[in-house]
């Protein structure tokens, strides 16, 4: 449908999220702000992120953003998380400017997840 507020990437990530869930016992981060809530958890083997799972409460853009993050970083090295930037994800999802703040909630959650993963790796 023309003029949808959601581009096809949002539509797909929102409608068919394949990373919903929790990695039980894995490093986990939870963040809430601006009425949005995100939980991320990871399955780590050596320094590989073999699994990324999320739960989220928020608008379609935020749900799609978390799913897209999972799609992009599952299977990659823990170090790669440093490369995460909000800019490209905002672009991929055509997030309207007034929702920028919400995407920063995702950024915060990822930062928190990195910390949790580091703790996890250190303990090991």
């Amino acid at each position, binding site marked *: 449908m023309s003029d949808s507020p*959601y581009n096809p990437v949002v539509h797909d990530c*929102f409608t068919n999220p394949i990373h919903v869930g929790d990695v039980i016992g894995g490093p986990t981060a939870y963040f*809430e702000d601006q*009425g949005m809530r995100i939980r991320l958890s990871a399955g780590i083997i050596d320094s590989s992120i073999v699994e990324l799972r999320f*739960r*989220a*409460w928020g608008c*379609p853009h935020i749900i799609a953003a978390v799913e897209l993050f999972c799609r992009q970083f599952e299977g990659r090295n823990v170090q790669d998380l440093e490369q995460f930037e909000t800019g490209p994800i905002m672009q991929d999802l055509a997030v309207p400017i007034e929702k920028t703040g919400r995407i920063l909630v995702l950024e915060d959650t990822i930062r928190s997840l990195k910390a949790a993963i580091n703790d996890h790796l250190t303990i090991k």
Partner: protein
Amino acid sequence: MILDLIYLDYAATTPLHPSVAEYMRKVQSEAYFNPASNHAAGRLSLAVVHHAAIELAQLFNVNPERFIWTSGATESNNLAILGAAKQREHRGKHLITMRTEHKAVVDAFLFLEKQGFEVTWLAPNLDGQLPLDLFEAALRDDTQLVSIMHINNEIGTIQDIEKIGSICRKRDITFHVDGAQATGKIAVDLAALPVDLYSMTAHKFYGPKGAGSLYVAEDVLIEPLMFGGNQQHRMRPGTLAVDLIAGLGKAASVAQRKMTDDLKHLSSLKKQLMQGLQGIDGLHINGPSKDGYPGILNVGVEDIEGESLLKALEPLCVATGSACNSQSLEPSYVLRAIGRSDIEAQSAIRFSLGRMTTSDEIDKAVSLYCRAVKRLRSISPGPIL
């Protein structure tokens, strides 16, 4: 793609009734003239306009002379409220309305506030009804105008126009009713009701968009919004859109004929919808649980984000908040006024049913709604602790 849509947003707008569309086409090709023209063709169009006035008058049981043609209820509301308030400034500068009125009423009153009028904004009870004791307590000697909508567009509350109007009439207060959602849907006998000004718009009852009317009771004077010659008793200038007016009249006449059947049909569909949804955890009805207009059901559900709900409901076409403000995602001020929290209000979905709605569509809507709630809950990290 459009074929897949399930349209349950009849309170936002309706399609043309087939016989209305057909009649308009006939007028467009055979009587497209300017009713103000002083020749045989113009007089033909004028006769079409007169006929429409008679059809509209029959629906309301009043004299056909009493209708002003406008572009819709927004204009009718503005004309009535600004026009009456200014016309009777000498009578007083106090005005009364409700917090749950349509934007076209709310914003007209906000403008009058800026112009030095004083407005009392009454709050409804949980059902959306105006508490009459509150209303009587708000009346003052300098109260000159009261505006209360007939059927609320978001939650379907039907106000007791008769009681409110009688109180106004006793005190020489002009009484305006926004009847945009009531016209052609419930019986409105303006010969019996103590109403001075009544707004309507054709596109809410299977008539054309861009066609409205304001009923002005005898001896009620209002100032115009626009100027341009002597047409329509100088209350509303501009070339009369004969085909739109014809469509409005015909829609009124169809509505009158079908009203009983329409109401029965809607009541049965609303019952089906309510039964279908009742199993959902944390669901609540916004607005009247009984005696509301059967074409509207507004429900909210705990711990679901509104925008995602709307998206997850596709291809179901329903409204969040009022259709007219739904481009912004602020929680509906109507729902706030009946006591809903921001978070409750933002999950609200208005189902509005119409003449063409089928029982099958209701089934689909129910299953889409149930699935969407379940899916979003399965994604959610759980309620905020």
